[in-house]
């Protein structure tokens, strides 16, 4: 596959330890992942498995304790606009209007005002936000806010887009709409997307490859390529087979997790 030719994101032997007051937690262990240009990767796992930690390491918000992340040919040391991020909580600036949120990144890049206006208008048009351009985020529904966040990320014109459970808080219908929209955007803009989710169905619907994670320490349990053509039909035989396979994998980890919890609570009881 293309990713072997020119990896755009390279995760090398990444480990992450969080130091708490009483004990340290090994959140990630020995993660190796190579993501090629134009790939759509979903990182799948139960909550607490370290999938967001991995995404934050790529984004540069929280650097790995060991190993390294290389993105766009450079080792990641800090967050930056070459790795646009879409957060679960949308993280729009509430004091800026929709248009101001989208144009902020372009103003920082010091683009000429005409150019900024043109680009912002085009993006708002693309994401069906034109009539909301002068509204504040609080007037928008969750789905609309996430559209603005996607427009803001696209405005940065970065090859990589990182998404941390972006549709997790939305209702099923809005979620499906945005998933379809995201696929269109991915194909049109030729982005490389790393998408964190705990929804098995979502990961099969979107990804080229699903990276299933183990529970604590988070490591890669299995990488499953999804070769179904887009748009995908979640009632197709192959879709359901994949769903069963991934459910199996996730369930194993969930069980391991529960056992670990029980063991831990027994220990503390004694």
């Amino acid at each position, binding site marked *: 596959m293309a990713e072997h030719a020119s990896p755009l994101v390279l995760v090398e032997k990444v480990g992450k330890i969080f130091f708490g007051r009483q004990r340290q937690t090994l959140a990630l262990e020995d993660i190796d992942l190579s993501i090629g240009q134009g790939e759509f990767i979903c990182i799948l796992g139960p909550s607490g498995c370290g999938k967001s930690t991995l995404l934050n390491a790529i*984004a540069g*918000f929280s650097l790995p304790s060991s190993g390294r992340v290389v993105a766009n040919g450079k080792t990641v040391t*800090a*967050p*930056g*606009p070459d*790795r*646009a*991020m879409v*957060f679960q*909580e949308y*993280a*729009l*600036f*509430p*004091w*800026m209007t929709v248009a101001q949120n989208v144009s*902020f*990144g372009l103003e*920082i*890049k010091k683009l000429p005002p005409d150019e900024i206006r043109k680009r912002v208008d085009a993006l708002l048009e693309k994401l069906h936000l034109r009539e909301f351009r002068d509204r*504040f*985020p*609080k*007037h928008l*529904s969750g789905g609309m806010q996430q559209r603005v966040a996607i427009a*803001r990320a696209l405005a*940065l014109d970065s090859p990589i887009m990182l998404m941390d459970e972006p549709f997790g808080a939305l209702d099923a219908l809005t979620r499906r709409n945005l998933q379809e929209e995201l696929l269109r955007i991915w194909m049109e803009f030729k982005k490389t997307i790393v998408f964190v989710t705990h929804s098995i169905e979502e990961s099969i619907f979107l990804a080229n490859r699903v990276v299933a994670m183990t529970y604590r320490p988070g490591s890669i349990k299995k990488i499953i390529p999804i070769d179904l053509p887009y748009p995908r039909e979640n009632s197709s035989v192959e879709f359901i087979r994949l769903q069963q396979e991934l459910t199996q994998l996730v369930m194993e980890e969930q069980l391991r997790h529960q056992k670990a919890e029980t063991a831990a609570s027994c220990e503390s009881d004694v």
Partner: protein
Amino acid sequence: MVVQAPTNSKPAEIARRTVQILLVPAFLLLLWETLSRLGVISPQILPSPTRVLLKWIEYACPLEPYDATQTGRLAWLFSGELPHDALATIFRVTVGFLIGAGLALPLGLLMGSTKSFYALFNPLIQILRPIPPIAYIPLAILWFGLGNPPAFFLISLGAFFPVLMNTISGVRNVDSIYIRAAQNIGATGSTMFLRVILPAATPYILTGMRVGVGVAFICVIVAEMMAVNNGLGFRILEAREYFWSDKIIAGMITIGFLGLAIDAGMDKINRHLLRWHRSLGC
């Protein structure tokens, strides 16, 4: 989704709410008037509301009859004692507040955003903060003499700490998600500060300003009682010397309404500046 506040504009509803608002004050006024009329309370101690009202009108009206050769109509209309006093008080509050808030805001921003500055200044501020501005009166007179300067000093002191403390917590409590989002977009240094941290802290800062104006208003009345010879605070103290209890109460009512008006004005400014904020349903 736009949430509409439940507004019911039927005339019957308006009438009902007006009655609700006025019921208790009207009852108390009536009781007060009756007690005064019946001679239960000496008018020297507590004059009747009608006497206070008449005094208030007298206090508010121009002293001289209108003379077109001397002044314009507007200047004449405001030539009474009360408008002069009220303007003097408003002037002192404004100047004092601007000095106090003008010093507190930059210091608060600096202390909120720089740990070392916070560590340097915080001990001093924690010691000075509990001292009520009124306790500075002797020093204020010693340092600044009489007149407006000591009044400005006390008023700015009153406005200083609420603005400072709220600005510090505003900056320190900026939600980290905004910082992360801004870092991701590429914001650094002054852009991060001016376009992300400062706006994110404005709800706190404006709360501090509103409290600060309130304290400044308390301080102006006190300051006028000791160092100057006009203004609402001076006038009610002066009235006491002549046993004009009706004028004292008329002055107090003016102070009450002025304070209310200033607070309502601040609220209006805040609502405009925070029109993006979630908690305001507009």
